[in-house]
């Protein structure tokens, strides 16, 4: 073996050092890598949320920008959120309903964790101030019973959301039951069989004109109608008042019933589908929403952010005491009954007590619906007409409901009717929907005029009346003016809801919704969901 010279020794030593340094540096880099997210492309957080959180979108966008992530909000009613959780909620990373009870009742798969309340807002009565004064509700303690008496005697007309679709509606409805039962310690299943209670509830609910699937939309509807009062979140009453004042109109006066309704505690919880990265984004988002940076923005929206709900009011323009808003009052809350009692009460609401619906479905059977289109349509209608399916979404028909289906292409093809909620009758209606095949062109106006003719045969004020038009294309004929004329002439005040599909002309449908104070639901991605939402408003 050759001797290695001193010079070479030096070279080798230097190389050793270089190699060692390289390995150490390399390993440090790799350790750092494994500890952080070195990944490309934006991460998305899919959140299943109550519609009242739509106003938080600008705040969420700020977070998206700061963190280079996407937040994808899907708005559903509380009952639907509960249902989705029960089904595993595999497409969602987080849940954000109005009240934690819907997570608690829905999370049978134990997937929700890190649940924190982001804001609170009580469910209250907002009554036009002059009316509230006249009824003697200003400056004294008022109970739910006091208010219900005025509704029963028709001295007060009011609006609320559907109890089976929306948290504020469910809360108010349960509050009414407590009040009518004389405020027992808790509502029991037997209490609900009380005939007098049922009669009183029916009377009260018959005074609700037009129900709504979401609290936020109830505000829009209120602003466009002429009612004295609505049951809604304090934050939404504040929002409504800001708009009323801007228009120079009379604001609503907030009444916190002494016996209490409920508080929306807006919990944001993580749905664990086993993705660590998403959990990190979630925790960051949750911290952000309760941070001192975001709190003033939430307060500006009329949400309460403090612990223990009461706070020193530093925002008198939003939490305006002239509107009856009191941030120091102790807010009583009724006790939520057990899950089976809630379920029973909601079922009763849906099938017996609510104001009956008179719904006319105008369904597009034009040639372009052939194939997937008509298959989706049939399955969407079956979700509403097959009562076993409808029950899952709390969308069952009631004994007094009237369901009319008008299939059309460029002509009205037929008129099918079903009265009441007899399962066989409704399934027969479904089989007609299933056996008609699509063909021909599209005229969306003829069926609407026909629908109005059919509606005129009933006493409209006995029903929550609406037309739901589903179309997949542009109308070949434009008789928009004729529809508007007829609508005005008959003074019908019927909302014309639309469901878009395929190539439908959204502007055409939006115009109909705008003049009749209705909404357009997007059925292009999910027709069933759009039908479900539209029905939830009726």
């Amino acid at each position, binding site marked *: 073996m*050759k001797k*290695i010279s001193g010079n*070479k020794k030096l*070279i*080798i030593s230097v*190389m*050793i050092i270089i*190699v*060692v340094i390289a*390995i150490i540096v390399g*390993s440090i880099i790799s350790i750092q890598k494994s500890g952080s997210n070195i990944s490309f492309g934006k991460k998305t957080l899919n959140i299943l949320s109550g519609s009242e959180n739509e106003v938080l979108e600008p705040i969420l966008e700020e977070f998206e920008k700061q963190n280079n992530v996407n937040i994808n909000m899907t708005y559903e009613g509380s009952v639907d959120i509960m249902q989705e959780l029960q089904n595993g909620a595999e497409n969602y990373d987080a849940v954000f309903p109005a009240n*934690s*009870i819907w997570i*608690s009742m829905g*999370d049978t798969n*134990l*997937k*929700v*964790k*890190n*649940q*924190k*309340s982001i804001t*609170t807002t009580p469910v209250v009565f907002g009554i036009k101030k002059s009316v509230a004064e006249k009824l003697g509700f200003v400056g004294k303690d008022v109970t739910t019973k006091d208010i219900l008496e005025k509704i029963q005697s028709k001295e007060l007309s009011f609006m609320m959301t559907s109890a089976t679709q929306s948290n504020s509606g469910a809360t108010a409805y349960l509050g009414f039951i407590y009040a009518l039962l004389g*405020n027992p*310690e*808790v*509502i*029991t299943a037997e209490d609900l069989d009380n005939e007098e209670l049922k009669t009183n509830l029916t009377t009260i609910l018959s005074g609700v004109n037009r129900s709504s699937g979401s609290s936020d939309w109830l505000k829009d509807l209120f602003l466009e109608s002429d009612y004295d009062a609505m049951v809604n979140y304090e934050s939404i009453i504040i929002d409504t008042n800001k708009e009323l004042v801007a228009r120079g109109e009379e604001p609503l006066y907030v009444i916190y019933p*002494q*016996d*209490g309704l409920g*508080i929306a*505690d807006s*919990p944001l919880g993580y749905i*664990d589908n086993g993705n660590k990265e998403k959990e990190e984004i979630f925790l960051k988002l949750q911290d952000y929403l309760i941070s001192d940076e975001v709190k003033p923005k939430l307060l500006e929206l009329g949400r309460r952010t*403090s*612990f*223990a*709900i*009461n706070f020193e009011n530093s925002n008198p323009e939003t939490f305006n005491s002239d509107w009856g808003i009191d941030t120091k009052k*102790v*807010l*009583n*809350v009724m*006790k*939520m*009954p*057990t*899950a089976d*009692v*809630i379920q029973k009460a909601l079922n009763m609401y849906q099938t017996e007590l609510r104001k009956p619906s008179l719904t006319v479905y105008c369904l597009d059977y034009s040639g372009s619906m052939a194939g997937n289109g008509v298959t989706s349509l049939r399955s969407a209608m079956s979700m509403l007409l097959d009562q076993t399916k409808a029950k899952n979404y709390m969308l069952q028909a009631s004994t007094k409901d009237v369901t009319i289906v008008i299939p059309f292409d460029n002509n009205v093809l037929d008129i099918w009717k079903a009265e009441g909620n007899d399962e066989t009758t409704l399934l027969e209606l479904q089989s007609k929907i299933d056996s008609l095949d699509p063909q021909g062109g599209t005229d969306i106006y003829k069926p609407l005029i026909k629908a109005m003719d059919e509606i005129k045969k009933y006493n409209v004020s006995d029903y929550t009346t609406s037309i739901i038009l589903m179309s997949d294309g542009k109308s070949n004929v434009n008789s928009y003016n004729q529809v508007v004329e007829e609508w005005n002439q008959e003074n019908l005040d019927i909302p014309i809801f639309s469901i878009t599909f395929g190539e439908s002309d959204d502007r055409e449908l939006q115009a109909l919704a705008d003049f009749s104070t209705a909404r357009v639901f997007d059925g292009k991605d999910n027709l069933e969901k759009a039908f479900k939402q539209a029905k939830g408003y009726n």
Partner: protein
Amino acid sequence: MKSKIVGGIILLLVIIVIIAFQFVNVNKPEEITVSGYLGGEKEGLMQDEEVKKILKDKYGITVEYTKAGSIEMIEQDSSDKDYLFPSSQTALELFNQTKSDKLYKSEIVFNSPIVIYTWKPIAEALINNRIVEEKDNSYYIADTSALIKLVTDKKKWSDIGVNDLYGYVTIQSTDPNKSNSGNMFAGLVANIMNNETVVDSSTVDTILPNLKDFFGKIGYMEHSSGDLFEQYLKTGMGAKPMIAGYENQMIEFAIENPNDWNMVKEQVAVLYPEPTVWSSHPLIALNEKGAKLIEAMQDEEIQKIAWEKHGFRTGVNGTINTEIEGFYGIPKNINAVIQMPNPDTMQKIMDGIK
């Protein structure tokens, strides 16, 4: 030739370095991920960055968890889990009765007494009614029997002088069939109804109707102690006037949220019931990985953090040796303790109020 030698030496060096690295790694613990069911009241502890770091650095453990009520988790399928971390001896005993073949090892790692969380105006009214007493100017003790009697006698808030509240006096708890704090509270109330002696199979039937009535009045019961406590703090006195919870929950909240604590500390009141029941938190290992977590959770540093930041008592009898700064007074010892009913009796109680 020269380059061959140099090349050979470099290769040799690389080998040596690799071997050296592996040697170093021998001293580092093997990296494992341990997953299981966790009671909601310990979420804060397991999310604590310091705790996570000690587990990782010292023991090589990353903990994953699914939040579940103590009783609920016993009934779940745990075949893919390494541990269960409920908050009661009862849960452990139920596990032993139904799934003893799955038990690898278990150890009580924390203790916490059941307390009643309420609000200052209520505590003051209760003092006036001689049901609550303030001790050492720093904490409240409550006569458990007298407190329960307010509920069973259908007293209204106005009867005891709390005029801001509407309706009847109630103490809310989590669902005794799902969550441990509610379960322990049910055991405590049952004992009180049995003239402050531990209920057993011979006496349980006598008190069951009253107990059923007591819990029936609560209405909807939450499944997790953590969620109930969060609602208590957020929705306030009119929504949650009195709730049963663990002592550690308020301590943890105060330490984690000093600003929020400053806002609520003048409003909240913690009642130490006399007698009360102890909630022990047994860590149930289902395999070797779970057993490693037991060892790690008994680490001195973790036990110190568990008390100082999360309020879990860790000594043998739950005796504490530190004051928590900026916090209200905490009794050093919890002496007036009554045993929980035995598991068979508890099962009867749970079935009775289902």
